[in-house]
């Protein structure tokens, strides 16, 4: 190695160490990470499935239930007023988080899956027989099945935009597939299996040139990429609380005002009405039209706190740290015989999927769990993508702001031992 190369590597090591020191202060905010699993320090690398929660989020939910809980919107007493303020404050935080032009364009749901189901159900009146709905080959089941059902109801056709072996959308094919028949394009922003960050601006622009409705599944992206729905100009953007350090059971649907007004409600009942008689019902204004029943108030408080947490971070530094972990892990994995990385886009996030020759992901996952290492194994709710790669599943390590380079060393050591064990 030349002196110049040596100095360059040393400089990177110093930068990594400095950054990691900063990130360790953040790690201390996550109490769950300080525990043993099977007698070993927990190494949590399943962040694409769900991130862990900082104390501020846990305390916000606890504080809400200890001091402010009541039902929202129609109560005149103090607790109801407080609960309503907390709930609507959370909506305001989400509004700013995604740069929505208005607060009433933010609908709280159970999560990304329900957000997609809401759209797929509510746009039924806008879709006709022989219309086409486009999705990509890398979609999560939650961005496949609701559209299949919509097609069954309407007679529309579901078309799948192909991807390359590296895991990139074939944009030329996509451009060919968008026609005047295309009524809706629903695409994942950041693939949960491949880590690919899709060129959604280009995808949205092309879809809009044919007046198609655009839906962006931001479940994985929202915690990693700053979202500006006005700049993106998408019709819908969706994400979940639990993947951005918030609680489970709460999600977000951002929608453009004109289309939210045009489509039908998703569920019917209390909260979503203005006036009810036995003869007819008048629906409430946005956002309440889409929030039937008592909402997940504590979940909203939690997602609000998770947005405060994210806003308190240096997001560039977090991104650099996560990608440094990804690149470090990729480099180490590629040195192990028989490992094949699934998803090699040049524009990707800190998600690393791989398979090991002759070894099943579930066996690997179970064995390395003995070393306290939590990874996700299987099809990651992307069975058609597994079919594309002709594999039953992958091992997926997904990194977050609180992970460390030494945790990746532990992952690599555990993988080597698992391989040795299974090869015997």
């Amino acid at each position, binding site marked *: 190695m030349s002196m110049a190369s040596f100095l360059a590597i040393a400089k990177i090591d110093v930068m990594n160490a400095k950054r990691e020191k900063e990130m360790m202060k953040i790690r201390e905010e996550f109490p769950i990470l300080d525990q043993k699993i099977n007698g070993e320090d927990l190494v949590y690398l399943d962040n694409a499935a769900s991130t862990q929660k900082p104390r501020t989020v846990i305390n916000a939910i606890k504080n809400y239930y200890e001091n402010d809980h009541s039902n929202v919107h129609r109560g005149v007493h103090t607790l109801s007023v407080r609960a309503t303020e907390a709930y609507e404050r959370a909506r305001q935080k989400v509004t700013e988080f995604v740069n929505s032009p208005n607060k009433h364009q933010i609908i709280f749901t159970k999560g990304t899956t329900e957000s997609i189901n809401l759209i797929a159900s509510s746009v039924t009146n806008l879709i006709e027989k022989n219309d086409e709905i486009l999705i990509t080959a890398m979609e999560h089941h939650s961005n496949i099945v609701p559209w299949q059902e919509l097609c069954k109801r309407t007679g529309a056709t579901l078309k799948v935009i192909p991807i390359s072996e590296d895991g990139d959308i074939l944009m030329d094919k996509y451009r060919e597939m968008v026609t005047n028949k295309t009524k809706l394009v629903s695409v994942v922003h950041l693939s949960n299996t491949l880590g690919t960050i899709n060129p959604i601006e280009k995808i949205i622009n092309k879809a809009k040139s044919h007046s198609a409705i655009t839906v962006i599944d931001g479940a994985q992206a929202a915690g990693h990429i700053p979202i500006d729905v006005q700049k993106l100009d998408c019709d819908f953007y969706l994400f979940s609380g639990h993947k951005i350090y918030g609680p489970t059971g709460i999600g977000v649907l951002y929608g453009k005002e004109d289309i939210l007004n045009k489509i039908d409600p998703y569920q019917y009942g209390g909260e979503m009405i203005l006036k009810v008689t036995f003869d007819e019902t008048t629906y409430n204004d946005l956002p309440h039209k889409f929030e039937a029943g008592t909402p997940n108030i504590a979940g909203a408080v939690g997602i609000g706190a998770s947005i405060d947490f994210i806003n308190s971070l240096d997001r560039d530094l977090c991104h650099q740290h996560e990608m440094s972990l990804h690149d470090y892990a990729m480099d180490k994995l590629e040195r192990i015989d028989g490992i094949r990385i699934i998803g090699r886009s040049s524009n990707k996030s800190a998600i690393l999927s791989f398979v090991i020759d002759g070894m*099943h*992901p*579930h*066996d690997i996952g*179970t*064995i390395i769990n*003995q*070393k306290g290492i939590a990874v996700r*194994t*299987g*099809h990651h709710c992307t*069975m058609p993508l*597994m079919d594309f790669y002709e594999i*039953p*599943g992958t091992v997926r390590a997904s990194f977050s702001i609180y992970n460390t380079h030494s945790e990746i060393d532990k992952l690599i050591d*555990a993988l080597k*031992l*698992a391989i040795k*064990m*299974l090869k*015997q």
Partner: protein
Amino acid sequence: MTSNLYKNQLIELSHNPYHFGKPEKIFSSNEALNPLCGDKITVYQSGDSIQDIDLWFESVSCIICSASASILAQNSEGMDMNDGIEFMKQVETALKDGTLLDHNLPKALNCLGEINNYPSRITCATLPWSTAIELLQ
């Protein structure tokens, strides 16, 4: 590193499974999917009838599932249908409720005795048995 589940016998069985592949003559077959991981298994009854059990299997699956299928094929071979179904049901129940070692079952099954400590893997072990029961019934 140790893993109580991954015993040598289990790994060996999965590397050299009994009756792995399609039999020359297929009387009937049944395919099943593990919804938790997408694994697939096809269990075949070989021969001209279902009276004397002669099971074969093909699978894209983990070690637990392959080894369990191998044990199934070897230990049910030659049983008549009623006895075979009863045996398979007994094993399936024992795998699920963690009582595998409490019954007078073939010793080969002992290597799956720890499965109950790994709740997310129980379906891997039971899949061949439930698929075979469905096939024979």
